[in-house]
């Protein structure tokens, strides 16, 4: 072991490694402790990041949007065509309209009350479970899954809203958690089917959250040049900030849990090194007798502790990357969707794991180095 290439290069490291092979089970258990600690830190960190990303990804319809409502100082209760034109002249992005009412809905077997939405582009707000959502529509209806259940209808049937019969083009999927238009218990109709030609909400759809924040600021400046707030312009910036802050708190908490498991692991390294120092008292005495300085013994014992840490941490990182891939596949639909932040957690786990072993090796190593050889050798 010492007389191979590596041993010639780093004899103390080779010697330390050979010492660790003496009590294999104990070495493996001490390493397992570090592995679990590193796994906890790295995978909890990575999981948190992936979760955060997946929420923001799901919420892209919200985070990439700017929505406008009549402001406090508006001289209108709902947007008219001229307002829509006004907004359109300031932005390059598509502007969608939404109308909202409540009405009774009837089907063959049942009837109930529901929200009726008028969407110019329903595909931007909902996805179809069965049937198809048309790009440009003038007739037909889309029905939310809960409402479809309670009315016992499916694609191809028809519903009666306010006395008007509409054919069901699609039954929608459940609304994602993050969506701000809840369509589960709603009927979606083309704007042309509404009696009025005013809109309750205008939505500008951009390509990224940052673009949305900029557009929102520009629009606010252009549409409300004076002190009056004719248009209320909203974006998700505050929402995202709040969410990120909450996630940061949760992540800190998760890391603290990981940290605790690493502390437990260092206690076990401490214990193993102390036991090994006591067991090998005579042997260390011999080393001192044959000319090892105290520093040499210290280096040897620390090398053992660091090897334990490195081994455990390395395995921990490999396992947490694998686990991270599983989490990514589940939450982000791409096993390799690691962000820099997620990889930082892996690096952090590795560094902490190795450092923890080094620190818990210090005292046992110091104790071994300072044992007087005479006393160690007295039988």
């Amino acid at each position: 072991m010492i007389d191979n290439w590596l041993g010639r290069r780093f004899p103390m490291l080779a010697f330390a490694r050979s010492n660790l092979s003496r009590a294999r089970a104990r070495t493996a258990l001490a390493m397992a402790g570090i592995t679990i600690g590193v796994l906890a830190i790295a995978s909890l960190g990575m999981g948190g990041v992936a979760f955060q990303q997946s929420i923001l990804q799901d919420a892209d319809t919200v985070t990439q949007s700017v929505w406008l409502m009549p402001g406090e100082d508006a001289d209108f209760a709902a947007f008219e065509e001229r307002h829509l034109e006004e907004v359109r002249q300031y932005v390059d992005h598509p502007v969608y309209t939404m109308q909202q009412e409540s009405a009774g809905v009837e089907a063959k077997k049942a009837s109930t009350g529901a929200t009726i939405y008028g969407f110019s582009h329903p595909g931007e707000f909902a996805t179809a479970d069965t049937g198809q959502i048309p790009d440009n529509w003038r007739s037909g209806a889309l029905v939310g899954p809960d409402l479809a259940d309670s009315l016992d209808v499916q694609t191809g049937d028809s519903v009666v809203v306010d006395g008007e019969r509409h054919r069901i083009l699609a039954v929608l999927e459940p609304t994602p958690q993050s969506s701000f238009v809840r369509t589960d218990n709603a009927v979606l109709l083309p704007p042309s089917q509404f009696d009025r030609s005013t809109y309750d909400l205008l939505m500008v759809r951009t390509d990224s959250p940052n673009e949305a924040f900029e557009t929102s600021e520009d629009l606010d400046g252009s549409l409300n040049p004076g002190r009056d707030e004719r248009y209320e312009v909203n974006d998700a910036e505050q929402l995202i900030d709040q969410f990120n802050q909450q996630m940061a708190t949760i992540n800190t908490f998760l890391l603290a849990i990981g940290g605790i498991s690493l502390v437990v692991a260092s206690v076990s390294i401490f214990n193993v090194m102390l036991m090994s120092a006591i067991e090998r008292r005579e042997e260390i005495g011999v080393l001192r007798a044959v000319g090892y300085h105290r520093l040499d013994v210290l280096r040897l014992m620390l090398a053992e502790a660091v090897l334990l840490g490195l081994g455990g941490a390395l395995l921990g990182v490999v396992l947490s990357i694998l686990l991270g891939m599983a989490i990514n596949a589940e939450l982000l639909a791409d096993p390799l969707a690691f962000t820099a932040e997620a990889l930082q957690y892996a690096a952090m786990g590795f560094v902490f794991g190795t450092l923890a072993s080094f620190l818990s090796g210090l005292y046992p190593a110091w104790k071994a180095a300072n044992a007087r050889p005479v006393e160690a050798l007295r039988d």
Partner: protein
Amino acid sequence: MAVISAANAVKEYESGSKTLRALKGVDVSVDPGEFVAVVGPSGSGKSTLLNLLGMLDVPTEGAVTVAGERLSELSKRERTNLRRDTVGFVFQSFFLVPTLTARENVAVPGLVHGDRSELIDRAESLLERVGLADRLDHYPNELSGGQKQRVAVARSLVNEPEILLADEPTGNLDQDTSEQVLDVFGRIAREDDVAIATVTHDPQVTEYADRVVELVNGRIES
């Protein structure tokens, strides 16, 4: 000139309120190539004397001189260096590292200093000298007691010491294997001019020795 000597060496141990006087003024010196056996009943201070000569401990009074250097004038670090360069140790219970082969065990003292390129070769030739050329890659648990002790002797020689200190080197061996180890000692003393000082109960050892020093109750009797 003596390679190692103690002059009027006194060693006291504090144990509780009492002071234990283990050595009460001992004069002893060993010349190069000389094989000296220190005998005496247990508790007579033999091991204490060996520890002083091996610079593992310092005398309370008196002087220990190793290779011309007075022990009291050296720092701990210098003492360790001098010990490494001039003294080899052999112990009753061998103290080999169980996870290293015979060859590696012999090389252990050389790992922390000097030129390591020749270390393994030197370890091999030392093992050949003690008659273990066919046991280079054996682990301690694959060796008999006598073979282990011969590995330990080879280890004690790897730093090319001027004196070899042995504490009951045959204490754990039977008569035949003791003889093998003592043969090695004799050869090293004759051929390499290495002095050997051994503490022993074993009459067989005294037969091999050039000189026998008898220690009784902390003083030299003869």
